[in-house]
């Protein structure tokens, strides 16, 4: 042995380092691969179990549930986007730093960490029990709005705050009022970022189930030739019960399901949901990349 203790120590450190690097690669990528395989499995299973009637608007298909999902998320965005964007503007532009703003932030944080089943119960209590209504899409949309409100609010606030100060100063120095400055300069400048937040919120809305269990209900009866919006079977009536895709999967779990095609329906629904979520996330990423390219990192 002609290695000095110093050299020995370095050698040992290097061995440990390369060993740990291997361990990191194995452990670190394990879950990622697992998730990739899972996604591939879900989509593959949906494809294998596919039969043409799945696309129909009958009890054998998921057409109605698919429509309900889209319609419910649309309704929820109609509510949460104006509210969330306005609240974000308030936080970025109108509020003053202080206890009140801190409290508002804590409220938003609390909202965003509420279990969706708790939000669902709140919706059940306020939109169903207290109004005396039956399960309906609007109640579900309101519950989903509560869940997406924090995301839209914080995205809007961050987007406005990250704009260069010069935009606001430039507009104010031209004699624009604060609201003109916000509506004509600041909001257009950060619209793509807000849009990204809204798309992500929509993506989450598609998968929401627990909040809808006692609000939107677990049944759906639609008569596609009935366009009287006040009728409970009209597709566009927001005050009819409307089971969404994710609730449909819940309903198809073996215990309670009487549908002979239950597992095929659930598999296909799961695949559709995952594809929708993937598509929306990708869309959001594409928009984000576009913005950073276009503005050269300015915004």
């Amino acid at each position, binding site marked *: 042995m002609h290695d000095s203790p110093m050299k020995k120590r370095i050698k040992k450190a290097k061995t440990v380092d390369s060993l740990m690097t291997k361990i990191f690669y194995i452990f670190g990528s394990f879950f990622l691969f697992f998730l990739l395989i899972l996604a591939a499995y879900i989509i593959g299973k949906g494809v294998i179990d596919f039969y043409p009637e799945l696309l129909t608007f009958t009890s054998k298909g998921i057409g109605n549930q698919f429509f309900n999902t889209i319609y419910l998320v649309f309704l929820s965005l109609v509510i949460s986007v104006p509210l969330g964007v306005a609240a974000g503007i308030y936080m970025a532009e109108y509020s*003053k*730093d202080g206890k009140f703003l801190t409290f508002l932030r804590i409220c938003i944080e609390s909202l965003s960490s509420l279990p969706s089943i708790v939000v669902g119960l709140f919706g059940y209590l306020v939109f169903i029990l207290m109004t005396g209504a039956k399960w309906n899409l609007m109640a579900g949309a309101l519950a989903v709005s509560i869940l997406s409100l924090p995301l839209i609010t914080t995205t809007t606030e961050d987007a406005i705050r990250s704009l*260069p100060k*010069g*935009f*606001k*100063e*430039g*507009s*104010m*120095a*031209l*004699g*624009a*009022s604060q609201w*003109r400055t916000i509506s*004509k*300069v600041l909001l*257009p*400048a950060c619209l793509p970022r807000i849009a990204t937040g809204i798309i992500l919120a929509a993506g989450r809305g598609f998968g929401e189930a627990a909040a809808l269990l006692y609000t939107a209900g677990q049944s759906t009866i639609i008569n596609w030739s009935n366009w009287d919006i006040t009728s409970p079977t009209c597709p566009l009536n927001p005050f009819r019960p409307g089971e969404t895709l994710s609730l449909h999967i819940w309903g198809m779990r073996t215990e309670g399901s009487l549908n002979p095609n239950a597992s095929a329906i659930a598999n296909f629904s799961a695949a559709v949901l995952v594809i929708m979520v993937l598509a929306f996330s990708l869309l959001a990423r594409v928009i984000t990349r576009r913005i950073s390219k276009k*503005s*050269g990192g*300015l*915004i």
Partner: protein
Amino acid sequence: MTDIHAKEQTNIKFTVESLNLFYGDFQALNDINLTIEKNEITALIGPSGCGKSTFLKTLNRMNDLEPNVTINGNIYLDSVDVNKDMDAIELRKRVSMVFQQPNPFPKSVYDNVAYGPRINGIRKKTQLDEIVERSLKQAAIWDEVKDRLHKSALGLSGGQQQRLCIARTLALEPEVILMDEPTSALDPISTMKIEDLASELKKNYTIVIVTHNMQQASRISDKTAFFLLGNLVEFDTTITLFSQPSDKRTEEYITGRFG
């Protein structure tokens, strides 16, 4: 100074009397008295942190946007008190501002210039076209942008962006243009263009310019005010101030002994 006051009453645009400004407890401006005349360029010079930019911003109340600012004293624009008897928005339409960093909006060149007229309720396209063209020509940038009016203003060079910002200001037909170190972010050629432009514009406008560059002040301004530590040390015609400063501190500053 009372002299000037009496003699050229009608030519005075701004009269500032005993102006004090505080950021919280810190006094940033200390008893400023000054008059700014029509169709002249008034330069504000001094080392950084001396209060010159802060003073400039009081002239169109841009300080309102910052929290914890207290102002006392009077600023009169055409003998109307801007802090008491005038709406900040109305004031800023008459006294507009160009900033240190060019700050075009992320809109097209055309929409940038048309912004001011539009918020003032001008909707007719022919009228807007006319204002945009006139303003861009006045700002000496028309030839460079006339073929790309509907492309993003963010694609212009820094110097072009700054002239666009001046055009955007001109479209408002203000009475006074405030410039806060408008060339400090620009290259020498762009700087020259802006200086020429300022000299041209004073025929129709009153200009107040903050600059850290004494050569610039001596080249383009008619009057110069020297600020130090929140005080107005000396205010005189540019020729007098640079050739025969009456205060020792002014002399030390303009000969480059500090700052």
